[in-house]
């Protein structure tokens, strides 16, 4: 490994280990799996979760969701 590459590696290592890695006890592997999908291009996950939330809202309130949208549209 060249000196420049080694220094770059050390710098990156220090940057990554600056904050201790997050653990959540026995749920750590599941947490790591979820977080790894959010670290780079999180949009597919965000869209899937959002579609699920909105589908839930539609199942609960039916066409009354248009009322919520009308309120939100006036909310700016």
């Amino acid at each position, binding site marked *: 490994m060249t000196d420049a590459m080694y220094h770059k590696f050390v710098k990156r290592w220090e*940057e990554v280990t*600056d*904050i*201790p890695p*997050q653990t*959540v006890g026995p749920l750590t592997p599941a*947490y790591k799996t979820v*977080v790894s999908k*959010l*670290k*780079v*291009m*999180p*949009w597919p996950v*965000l*869209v899937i*979760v*959002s*579609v699920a*939330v*909105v589908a839930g*809202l*539609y199942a609960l309130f039916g*066409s009354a*969701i*248009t*009322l*919520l*949208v*009308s*309120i*939100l*549209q*006036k*909310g*700016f």
Partner: protein
Amino acid sequence: MAHELLIAGLLFGRNFVGIITRPYETYRRIVTKGSLWELGYIAALCAVYFAVASVIKIAAFRPFILTRQFIVLAGAACTTYIFMVLLLSLTGKVLHAEVSARRLLLGWGYTLIPTLVWFWSTSILYILLPPPRTTSAYGILFSVVYLVFSAVLLFWKIMLSYLTMRFGLRMDLSKIMHMTVMMVPVIGWYSIVLYRMGIFRIPFI
């Protein structure tokens, strides 16, 4: 100063793309290496938005009323930003976090990007497809798409807020959850105050 502004502009552009494609890595860079000058670009985007929002809200060319509306919106957003940074600092101190004003100012500043995207798009849609929505098939379809879009931006905002606390205050997940529980009622109260004052129906946080 011009030199610093130019560099900050390039950094802002890079970070803007970064929070879309690689939010985790980008936030780490923002809080450690970011420049406060970058906030100038976020402020400029907000100012342009408030100018446009004033015109849409007032819907008439009355310079005095438009200026007053702009000052009210910009003043309230500025106060909210300072309020949020102070709230993060205070709750961070209560939970014995490493509080750094610079890191919080930068971190929270970039969380305004999803807010701005939502407010911009809602304002534009207000002109193109003004409310109220009907319960026809098209009305429901638009409502579903709009709600999905809003939810995506909300989750993006929550993610960037989490990263602000994670890197800005160097906290772990349990402390971040404690902090969120402490902050939510205060933010709720603040949002009601803004609503009652007739400034923002949806808070510009």
